[in-house]
């Protein structure tokens, strides 16, 4: 019996040690508090690669100048973790991206979790607003007051806009397409690709693992905002516009013109089977007797990195370029354009956090982003050496209404159904009506609290 007790005792000890291990692991995940408010600041970022390098270059002069130590933690799931932290009452980072879910954002604001940019920047706020692209700090023209999509709630700004990308651009091979950009959608579709030695008008690739379909959703967003304007667009995001309505249906129909077998390289099956990162390859690859597989690819400002991934020798500005989205025929909506931004928000109001918030939108820091060649700065006065971003800055400056990417601000089930619907519609365009009817069904369930 004693022997048995001895063995059981050992087992108990082992179990105890296991528990210790678990406890220790659990403990280490919750240490992200604000150490000393005036000499240190904690920042979370989701950036990696070139973006992270650029961000570190932004922080370096700040640390040298102020002597404040910035602790940067990479966290790609910060919204969930901050939401958990709020629920559990644990320490939050001083500065981190805020949620882009409008409902969650209102909740955080009402709980006082994030502090207004007005507070963080103090007297510098007005300069920040006048330096920044209007679309990032002012609601679309015509509407006044709050715009949770860009972090304006209760008349206060909660997103500090750091950098910026533009979507809905038409990329082309400069050695193949040599004419001026088409002005309207009709002009675009009237172009004969074979005249330039290209097989088809468009290239497209919408495969993206579990998120397949999103590249086409960007294209559709850009069509709908230019066909039907910001009101329909915003109502659509908020679930107040039926998918079967004429406005949305005609958007799908225009998009399906792009991916029809006549217009798209490889046909719909190829579009659905091809990863978005590889979608632009046929611009630079001969196809049969043609110089190139296609003439145009619609994608955002981040596209050049995919071009150079497949073809390392390509140079922006000499080998490829882009033009902005053509008009959909309604001149009142030509100023609408689709952008997405990276924001930061202040969670702990400390002197060091305020200083860093001010620095991140300082023209000098913004110029570091502009010179990095990875993105547009949010400051409209910076200068670009990269020809692509130089061109993108012109598009951003000429647009009047920046509209956010629709799917990103819909409830997740609506967004997923939206992305999936584009796959189904590309696959079977004749099923469009039943696909849209199904989206109405999802909509009526997605926007209810259940």
């Amino acid at each position, binding site marked *: 019996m004693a022997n048995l007790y001895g063995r059981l005792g050992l087992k108990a000890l082992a179990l*105890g040690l296991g*528990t210790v291990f678990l406890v220790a692991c659990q403990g280490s995940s919750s240490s992200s508090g604000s150490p000393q408010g005036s000499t240190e600041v904690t920042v979370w970022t989701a950036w990696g690669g070139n973006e992270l390098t650029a961000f570190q270059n932004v922080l370096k002069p700040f640390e040298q100048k102020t002597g404040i130590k910035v602790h940067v933690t990479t966290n790609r799931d910060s919204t969930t973790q901050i939401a958990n932290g709020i629920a559990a009452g644990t320490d939050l980072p001083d500065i981190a991206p805020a949620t882009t879910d409008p409902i969650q954002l209102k909740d955080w604001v009402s709980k006082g979790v994030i502090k207004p940019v007005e507070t963080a920047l103090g007297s510098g706020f007005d300069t920040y607003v006048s330096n920044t692209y209007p679309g990032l700090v002012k609601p679309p023209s015509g509407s006044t007051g709050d715009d949770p999509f860009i972090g304006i709630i209760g008349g206060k700004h909660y997103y500090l806009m750091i950098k910026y990308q533009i979507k809905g651009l038409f990329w082309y091979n400069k050695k193949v397409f040599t004419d001026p950009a088409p002005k309207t959608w009709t002009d675009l579709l009237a172009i004969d690709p074979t005249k330039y030695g290209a097989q088809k008008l468009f290239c497209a690739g919408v495969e993206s693992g579990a998120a397949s379909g999103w590249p086409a959703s960007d294209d559709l967003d850009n069509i709908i905002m230019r066909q039907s304007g910001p009101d329909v667009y915003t109502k659509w995001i908020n679930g107040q516009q039926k998918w079967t309505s004429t406005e949305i249906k005609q958007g799908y129909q225009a998009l399906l013109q792009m991916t029809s077998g006549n217009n798209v390289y490889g046909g719909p099956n*190829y579009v*659905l089977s091809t990863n978005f990162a590889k979608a632009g390859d046929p611009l630079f690859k001969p196809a*049969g007797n043609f110089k190139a597989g296609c003439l145009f690819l619609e994608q955002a400002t981040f596209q050049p990195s995919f071009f150079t991934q497949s073809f390392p020798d390509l140079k922006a500005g000499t080998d490829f370029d882009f033009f902005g989205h053509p008009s959909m025929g309604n001149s009142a909506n030509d100023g609408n354009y689709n952008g997405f931004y990276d924001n930061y928000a202040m969670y702990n109001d400390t002197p060091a956090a305020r200083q860093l918030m001010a620095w991140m939108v300082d023209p000098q820091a913004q110029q570091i982003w502009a010179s990095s060649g990875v993105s547009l700065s949010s400051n409209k006065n910076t200068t670009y050496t990269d020809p692509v971003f130089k061109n993108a800055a012109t598009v951003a400056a000429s647009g009047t209404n920046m509209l956010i990417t629709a799917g990103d601000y819909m409830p*997740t*089930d609506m967004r997923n159904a939206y992305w999936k619907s584009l796959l189904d519609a590309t696959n079977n365009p004749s099923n469009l009506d039943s696909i849209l009817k199904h989206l109405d069904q999802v909509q009526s369930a997605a926007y209810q*609290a*259940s």
Partner: protein
Amino acid sequence: MDQDTLNQIITAAIAVVAVPAALLGYIYGGEWVIEHLPDGVQKWIRPYFWALPAVGFATVFMVYPMLRTIVFSFRNSADTEWMNGLSCNGQPCSIFQNYIYFFTFPDTLTSLRNSVLWLIFYTLFAVGLGLIIAILVDRVHYESLAKIAIFLPVPISAVAASIIWKFMFDYQPTGTTQTGTLNAVIGLVGHDPVAWLVNSTTNNAALIFVGIWTATGFCMVIISASLKSISSEVLEAARMDGANEFQIVRLIVTPLLWPTITVVGTTMIINALKTFDIVYVLTNGAYNTDVIATQMFRQLADAKYGRAAAVGVVLFVAIVPLMLVNIRRFQQQEEQR
């Protein structure tokens, strides 16, 4: 050392000392108490005393979550209301609203249909091929080599296997070089390339095929092991009586293997119902390839916890009878020994 680190060390120290101490206290203290009880009570209480920790852990980590899931399936996603307290199109919802959703919404019905397809074809082919291969390789001298070849996909994780097959199923436009192996092969015989994963007549079959590819080796190994235990005297006797090899397989080997086939078969059915990774990686349910498990995951990811719980309960109810069959089979085998 800052306060956080210190706190962690204190917590760890308490756990190092307190948890084993509590367990040892339970064992020694409990035995001490039991030893001082009358003999009859001692005999009665001791098994319960020793089983209590195990039962306790199972209750906390398995029974409670299961019951909680069942309760959750009748509540809203925020877990604040019963479903019949909510309004559905102006009417009060049914308490079974999450289940009604599952059995009426077109997307979930497609996933239900596909899971049935998986259940039938995946199980049939994995077990059937496993059986046939096990019997065939038993009769050749390069048996172990052949078995290794068939077994190779088993240790590959389902995600890696799916990525391998993603390349195999790759599609390029007609008239260009086919980088996907399958389309290259059918191109050799002059057939146009097929978008295996997009085309809704081929995609479910393609996914199930990947499942069969990863599972056949497992079925073969188990069946083969059981095949080896059939006494060679029985087979000799049959041959002496003039039975041909086909008759031996049909009338002697297969019936003797039947208990094993049932166990392997039920395990495969459970696998088929749980299928997730292959579908998630290859199509994520697009083009009507959703299955129950990807549907459950999607509801979870969309924060529809009530609906996800309902899917989980349906899956659980479907699997329980199969597990009972399996357990009964094991018990019969134990009795035979």
